Every structure is written in C-alpha cells, then in structure tokens.
C-alpha cells in the first residue's frame, strides 16, 4: 500500500506541528464570524446539555441520536415514523457532506444532538454540521503521526458527546475531547504507546454517567487488551479493566504457566452497551491471539471471547460469560450486545442478545450472565458440531499445523462488525449473513510485543458443493426463528437501522442505500450514493421534519479482503460522504 500513501495536503496542511491550537482558534473565529445567527446559537448551546442521565433517557427524545448505537441498549432503532412504508418512495436527498479524503472510507455513525450533527471521518477528522442544511459549523483535523505505522487502519467508527465536549479515540491510541461549540481541543490522553501494544482506537467511545468509556484494537497483535474509562470533563483516568487477568488474579491460570497473558490479545475494538438500572456495562471481548494457534496458550483464555459485565462506576467485573473457550478460529465476541426485555411468566426477562462472528447468536440473562440459548444466523457452520443446552461447544473442528482444516464460516465471520438493528415494533432483529468457508492452516511462532500474532494462513473457499452467498435476514432474537431472508449480491457491510415507520435501512458495497419493509423484507426505496456503505445510518428530526442520514464510502480491512473472493470488487470506488434524506417539504411538493 506504500504507493498510495501521501503526506497530508490541502487545508489540513495548515495544522503544522506546534501550530494546531492557534489554527483551531482561527477556525473558531472564522466560524463565529461567518455563521448565520441561528447557526451560532446552534453551535453554542447544544451538546453542552447532554449528560449521561440524558442519554439514559434517550428513547424519550427520538429527535436525537446522541450515542453510538442511538440508545444504550444497542437497538439502532429510531421511533420516528414520519417516513413510513407508504411514503418512503418519496424520500429525497436534502443535503450531503463530502469529508474530503477517501482513504479509509467512511465507517462512522454520525451523532445528532438538538439540530447539530457531529461526524468523524478517517484520520480522525471531526465535523460539526447544521443537521438541517449541512452547513459546516466547525471542523477539526487530528495531527496525523507521520512516523508511526498505524495498526488496523485510519478509519474511525464514531464519537461520543456530552458535557459540552465531543469525544473520540485516535489512530495512534489517544482519547481526545473537543469543545463542542468550537472544535478546540480540550484534553488529550495517550491510552498506551502504539509501538508497545500494536493497537489503536477505531471504535466509538460511549459516555456513561460522568465517564467516557473506550476500547482498543489489538486482537491480532501480541498485546494485553483493556477497556478504559476517563472522567469526561478532565480526561483523568477513572478505571481500567484488563481483559486478561494478571498474575495472582482469578483467570490468569487459563493462560498456561508462561507469560502469554501479556500477549494474548482480548481486544475491545467495538463499543459496549449499558443498563442504567443494573448499573452494568456490557462489552464484547475479542479473540485471543495468536488467532489460529491455541497450543501456545493452553487453557480457556479468559476473558477473550467473553461478554463481560462491569460495574459502571468502578470497572469491576460483575460477571462474565465465555462464548468460545480457547478460540482458534479468530471468532471475536466483539460485536454489539443488544439488550432486550421480554415478558415471560408475568415477569420481565432482561436479556442480552449477542451476534458472534462465528455464525451463532448467543442469548444470555444479563442480570446474572447465565447462558440461555445459542442460535445460528447462517446455515454454513462446521467449526463446531453443535452448542448444547448448557452452552458447551460440541465437536470442535480446529485448525492444525501442517495440514489445512476446512472451517465454516471463515475468519471473515458469518457477518462483519457492522451492527444489527432491533425493532420493538416487530420484536425482530435484522442481521446480515455470509455463507462461506476457508482452508485454515496454523503455525507456531512466539509473540513479539506489539507485532502481529496470528499464526495462520487462510484461503477462502465456498461451502461444500455450493457457492458463496450472502443475505439479509429478520429473526426472532430469542428463539432464532427466521422471519424473512433477502439474498444480496455481496455481503452487507453497512450497519442496519430500524425505524418506527416500519422500515429497515441499510446499504450495499455498490453504493445503494435502501429501505426494506421491516415485516416482509420487500425493497421499498433505493438511492445510489456512488460509493459503498460501511458506516452506520441514523434517523433524527429537526423542527418536526424526519431525516435519515447515510454514511457512504468504502474502505476497511474487510473491504480489502473482499477482492480475494470477489475480484471485481477491487474496482469499486472509494468515498467519504454523508447523504441526508427526507420527505419533500410542503413547499417542495407544490
């Protein structure tokens, strides 16, 4: 990829080393001067009001999308219903923003608070926009560390907002807070040296109470993972939960007797959920490294491939459930933890529904961590014969040294990280799937701190006697009963969005952003954005008008890997833009 690397140019060139503060101030001044009065008011009055308590009540203000998943329960659901199955065919673009750099695509989910959209693009470029018009209120460019290798890429999945600040993690493993009114940096803390951990932050932080909680990449590196919480106002460390117990801590014995606990991965590269009533944060922990060779780390390898429930105030472990002990397939448990309450026998069951890369969705009791069920969301699964009623894996099909093992699904997963959506209207979860396999050969090489620690080679293969196929499905999240399925040409790698209008929005790698009927899966509307969709669409409203925003722009590790399976996708164009849609306004209708 060397030939594609270019030094930053253009407007960001103004941010010379040592000059960024004054430049940011200049930007702020220009913004203040050039903004219309209404926009000035917007920029100055909004995210300041957001607190952890307000996000906990986010369902009461559907006009906003104030946290990464929309709400703490990771539903990716907006109850707005102005746009519905009968009128979605009239949906029309009202504005767009081009972020200006397409390297890394656009993987993010925008946030909207009281009429202001906050967006982060690749290389940690942050924008505040008038959510009605797209008018830019301010922008901020993170200083690209020129002399560093950037592990896991320069893309970024999202922000958190609150207490007058905008928070994000960086490609060189810092957490930064900006003044939400001006874009001026308020605080900046290094989480761990990139060279030491071979990790960085591509996932969105989440504001929980008075803290910003954030994970890190590093699951394929010789590294010890963690979740870190910083006080939102000052950036001071509140707590850190290591995903691998140290010597003397319970669970350290699950790593063998050597020092593999220092190198076993357990990354936390996506974003957790939160139950304010139980005061528990739920976070999916990534795979152990080395990914494809578990003989180097004899034992269950806690807390990799676990769901952990942490006390939100202290970061102390309340319970854990390990989905895949001693993983040797790179089946992260890092995906979203969807929190659903289901009435049963006159009581409310507090559930955690968790799609895993392995092709199964686990269902847990989120009060206790008790296993309830695991159901498959793809048909092609052979890495394990079954999962029994107690959650035990039966008949493991492990990669071996020297001779390839045929494993389904492959490490790309039954789906990628792009999040599912849950609609309380239908009671269904909407989730994509890929039917594919691979020949996996493992090898055995010791760890080198901060470097790749994978120990495997993978050749993608179709399922036995068939072709690689992809689809989009609706399931009962508890029983796993499939409600409908829609075939797709390529994997759906955009997050999904469910709305109160009975719709499911997502997009494909060819650039189409589309709406399906949530009950039938029928295609109701589509718009060609010109580049594939990899981020998180959202819905919000301003002054009574509902909008749907679609991040468009191909680029990520998964996209890089697609060309080996679908060679023609190597030619798909990159991009980095957000398209915003609404129904025609009364004036436009005339």
């Amino acid at each position, binding site marked *: 990829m060397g030939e594609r690397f270019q030094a930053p140019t253009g407007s960001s060139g103004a941010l010379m080393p040592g000059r960024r503060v*004054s430049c940011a101030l200049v930007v702020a001044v220009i913004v203040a001067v050039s903004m219309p009065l209404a926009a000035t008011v917007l920029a100055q009055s909004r995210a300041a009001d957001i607190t952890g308590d307000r996000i906990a009540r986010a369902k009461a203000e559907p006009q906003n999308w104030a946290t990464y998943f929309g709400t703490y329960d990771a539903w990716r659901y907006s109850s707005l219903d102005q746009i519905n199955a009968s009128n979605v065919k009239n949906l029309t673009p009202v504005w767009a923003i081009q972020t200006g750099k397409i390297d890394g695509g656009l993987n993010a989910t925008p946030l909207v608070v009281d009429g202001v959209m906050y967006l982060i693009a690749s290389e940690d470029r942050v924008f505040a926009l008038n959510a009605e018009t797209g008018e830019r209120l301010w922008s901020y460019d993170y200083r690209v560390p020129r002399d560093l*290798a950037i592990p*896991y*890429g320069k893309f970024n999945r999202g922000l958190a907002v609150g207490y007058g600040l905008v928070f994000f993690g960086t490609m060189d493993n810092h957490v930064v807070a900006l003044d939400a009114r001006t874009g001026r940096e308020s*605080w900046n803390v290094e989480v761990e040296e990139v060279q030491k951990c071979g990790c960085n932050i591509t996932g969105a932080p989440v504001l929980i109470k008075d803290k910003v909680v954030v994970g890190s990449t590093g699951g394929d590196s010789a590294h010890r993972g*963690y979740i870190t919480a910083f006080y939102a106002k000052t950036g001071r460390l509140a707590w850190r939960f290591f995903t691998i117990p140290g010597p003397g801590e319970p669970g350290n014995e699950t790593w063998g007797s050597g020092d593999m606990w220092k190198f076993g991965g357990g990354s936390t590269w996506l974003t957790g959920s939160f139950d304010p009533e139980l005061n528990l944060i739920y976070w999916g922990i990534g795979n152990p490294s080395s990914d494809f060779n578990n003989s180097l780390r004899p034992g269950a390898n806690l807390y990799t491939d676990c769901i952990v429930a942490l006390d939100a105030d202290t970061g102390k472990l309340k319970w854990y459930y390990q989905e895949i002990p001693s993983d040797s397939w790179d089946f992260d448990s890092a995906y979203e933890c969807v929190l659903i309450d289901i009435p049963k026998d006159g009581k409310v069951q507090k559930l955690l529904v968790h799609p895993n890369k392995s092709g199964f969705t686990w269902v847990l009791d989120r009060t206790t961590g008790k296993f309830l069920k695991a159901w498959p969301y793809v048909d092609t699964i052979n890495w394990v014969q079954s999962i029994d009623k107690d959650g035990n894996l039966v008949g493991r099909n492990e990669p071996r040294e020297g001779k390839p093992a045929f494993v389904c699904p492959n490490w790309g997963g039954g789906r990628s990280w792009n999040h599912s959506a849950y609609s309380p209207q239908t009671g269904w979860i909407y989730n994509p799937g890929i039917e594919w396999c691979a020949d996996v050969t493992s090898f055995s*090489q010791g760890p080198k701190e901060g470097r790749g620690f994978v120990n495997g080679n993978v050749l993608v293969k179709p399922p036995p006697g068939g072709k690689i196929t992809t689809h989009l499905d609706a399931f009962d999240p508890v029983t796993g009963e499939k409600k409908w399925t829609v075939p797709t040409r390529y994997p759906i790698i955009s997050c999904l969005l469910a709305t109160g209008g009975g719709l499911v929005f997502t997009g494909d790698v060819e650039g189409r952003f589309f709406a399906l009927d949530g009950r039938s899966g029928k295609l109701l509307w589509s718009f060609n954005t010109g580049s594939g969709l990899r981020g998180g669409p959202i819905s919000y409203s301003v002054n009574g008008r509902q909008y749907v925003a679609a991040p468009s722009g191909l680029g990520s590790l998964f996209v*890089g*890997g697609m060309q*080996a399976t679908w060679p023609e996708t190597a030619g798909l164009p990159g991009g980095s833009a957000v398209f915003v849609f609404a129904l025609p306004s009364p004036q436009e209708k005339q």
Partner: protein
Amino acid sequence: MGTRDRTWIRNGLVLAAVSAVISAVCFGQKSSASGESSPAGQYQSKLKDRDFISGGAGIFTRTCGSGYCHGTGGIGAGAPRLRGRDLDPGYIFKTITNGVPGTPMAGFKSDLTDEQRWKLVAFILSPAGANDPIGGRPAESEPKKEGPAAAVNTGGAMPAGDATSGRDLFYDLASQRSCHGCHAMNGVGGKVGPDLGASAAKSGAELLSAILKPRSVSDAKYATVTIVLTSGDKITGVKKEEGADIIRVYDTTVMPAVLRTVMKSEILTTEISQESVMPRNYGSVYSEKQLADIIAFIKSGAGNTDR
C-alpha cells in the same frame, strides 16, 4: 520522611556496586545484528534462484501472508495484493525494511536479516503458479535476536539488574507510577519529562539518585505548574506550550498524564515551582532489585521496538 531517607541510604550504599556491574553488562552486550549489512547486489543476483524464492515463500507465509495482511501467497487481503504486480525490487526491499508510516505496514529491519528481506523480494516478484509454495510449507525460522540485556550476576548480595524485567516495570500499564507515564525511551513513552534514551551513558549511581531523590528540575521547561481554574478544577503538571489565549499543560494529577488545553480566561491562579513533578517515593515503591532492573533497562538504551 524517615522511612524514605532510610531507604535512600540503604540504596545509596549499594549504588556503586550496582552501577559498576550494570556498566560491565551493557558494554558486553553489543548486538551483532547491525553488522550484517551486505551489498544488495549479492542478493539481487539471486532473485530468480529457486531456493532463494522458496526460502522467501516460507518467510512470507509466517509474516506478510499471515493474518489480515497480504493474503496467503500474496493475493491480497486486508492489505494490498503483492504478487504479479511488476513492482520494483528496490522499492519492495525498502518497504519491507522501513515499513510505510501512516499504514499498518511495519518495518522489518529488526526482525529479518538483509538476506531474508531479499528472499521475500524474490518470492513477491516470482510468478504465482500451480507450484506456488504457499500455505503450510515449513517456514524458515526467524533469526534469533538478543533481548535488551542478559541477567546480571553480581556475585554477591547486591541485586542483579535485568533489563528485560526493567523494561516491563518501565512500561507497566497497570501501575500509576511506572516511568513511561512521563518518560520515553528513544521516542516510545510519555512526553511529560525528558526522553531517557539520552541517559544511557549516565552512571548507575547518577540514575539511582535521579530516581530516588528527584528534587529540582535541571531544565526550566520541566518545572511544575499548578493552575486553579475558575471552575474550581486544579491542574498540577508540566507546561507544554502557551499561545496568546491558551495554555497547554500535561496534567499529572492522575496518570496517564492528560494534555489539557486551558483558556487563559478560565485561569484563577498559576504557580510555578522548580521542584520536579516526579514522585518522591520510588525508594518504597520499588525493591532494590526492581530499581536495578529499571536502571539496567535505561542503560541498555533499548526502549524502541522499531515499529
């Protein structure tokens, strides 16, 4: 105070012995890895040699072709396809050697010898074919690299300084007081205080004294600044820079240090002290052995992981 001073005196007694041993060890562990650069031509003439290509295939399998990187056999995965692209050999070698800043591509100068890197070039340039030696082929073992330093046997009651253990302590992420919170070694670590890569030449006695008895700062830029804000928040740390309207301070109240940007209009009071912000209690935080380990690491000057 009494406890701290007693600790200091006790450590002071062992100073000379520890530093002498450490010096001897560090002089004795010069790596030979850097002395093996050969004229590139010696290897370039072998780029079509079957054994040379095959050797490169083995290395490729375990490094470049592993994981999410360039794919099995170099057909591309998370990182670009490499085979069949008619790339320039010198360009490939340089990229393998130095990496590509700003991307996940690390440099392999410290992991692979010149010969091994040229073997990779040979494999990448070789045509992909049915007899491609990919996936599962026994791989060439990596060269043995020496650790930062070997263990030291003092031959007496004095603690041995082990640079590897010292490195673990220096970078201990679970500790609020580990050195890396403020100091880097050769660029890797905190930026609050000086990079200790320049301190490798100091005697063990000097380093021990600096760790145990940090007092006044030698350079005014590391002075301790205490700022009280109108919000009531108090920041203690080290000033990084100052603009017309703002001041940027490393807040060391809680580690890791937080780089705070404060509007001057928000500042109630500012105090500056020439006393170092460095904790005074390392004599009780660390054992003698641990101090000797940290000193051995600093003197090894081997903080950089060459990423």
